[in-house]
């Protein structure tokens, strides 16, 4: 189902359809995450992937037009590089421990301590919350700063140009007068 969606996103040339399809993809991904018991991540996926980014892409389409232009020519090296990277990733994933293997390194390193002592030390029953905000507070601080930096970057990129356009427009008006 999801593979079918991705294929139609690649083939489809109307960007409006692409945005709607990727929203559907995000919702399907959220249900997969619920099935994996990652409710927090599922919530984020549904809110950000299907909600906010769909709206942002729609406003981008509003600015740029909804038809994807045909590529001038198909580049063989680009195709080879993409297929090569995909093959390398699949090869790398073969080396990962089996899914939900209790002896995997991720389950034997610090996780047992978090699970055993976390609720007692923090008094918070939701493990995602206390790992995120308390034990991994540095990482979350970094993430918040990344979000902040992204916002600053968008402001710096888009606001400056609009101001310039306005001053250019003003200059033109003065020129006409």
């Amino acid at each position, binding site marked *: 189902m999801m593979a079918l969606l991705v294929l139609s996103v690649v083939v489809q040339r109307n960007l409006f359809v692409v945005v709607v399809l990727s929203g559907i993809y995000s919702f399907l991904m959220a249900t997969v995450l619920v099935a994996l018991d990652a409710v927090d991540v599922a919530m984020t996926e549904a809110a950000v992937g299907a909600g906010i980014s769909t709206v942002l892409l729609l*406003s981008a389409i509003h600015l740029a037009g909804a038809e994807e232009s045909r590529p001038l020519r198909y580049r063989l090296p680009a195709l080879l590089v993409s297929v090569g990277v995909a093959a390398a990733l699949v090869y790398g994933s073969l080396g990962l421990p089996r899914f939900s293997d209790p002896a995997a390194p991720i389950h034997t390193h610090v996780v047992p301590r978090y699970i055993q002592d976390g609720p007692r030390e923090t008094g918070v029953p939701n493990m995602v919350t206390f790992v995120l905000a*308390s034990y991994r507070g540095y990482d979350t601080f970094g993430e918040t700063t990344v979000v902040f930096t*992204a916002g600053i970057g968008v402001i710096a990129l888009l606001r400056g140009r609009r101001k310039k356009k306005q001053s250019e427009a003003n200059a033109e008006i003065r020129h006409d007068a």
Partner: protein
Amino acid sequence: MRDFFVLRVVAKMLIPFMLIFALYVQFHGDFGPGGGFQAGVIVAAAVIFYALIFGLPAARLLVPDALVESMMALGVLIYGGTGIAGMLLGGNFLDYFVLSANPVTGQHVGIFLVEAGVLVTVSGVMLKIFYVFAGRAKLPPG
């Protein structure tokens, strides 16, 4: 969009519930799924919904740009301030145990403040990105 009566009424009915749900996700994050990031996105989504139905100028009047921009910085400052408060009280950076006489209460206070910081920054940034994108178009998208 301004002439769709049904949409306007439904939006007015839904937005308060979206904001309450965001608060629920924020403050119930200790016990159920959710937390600052998710709640921040839901707050931003509520305002973006308002902007889609009632137009961007109305939303900018409701949540002005200056407020959104200061929210972006304020959240990071709340988060960092919590960390520095821990340092001033004799612990490490982001050490919550010293925030209160009882270590468990200290953890609660610390996590609460940190999540509040995440909420403020995330909703500010999401809204700002939407404002900047939508503000470049002549009409609000949708």
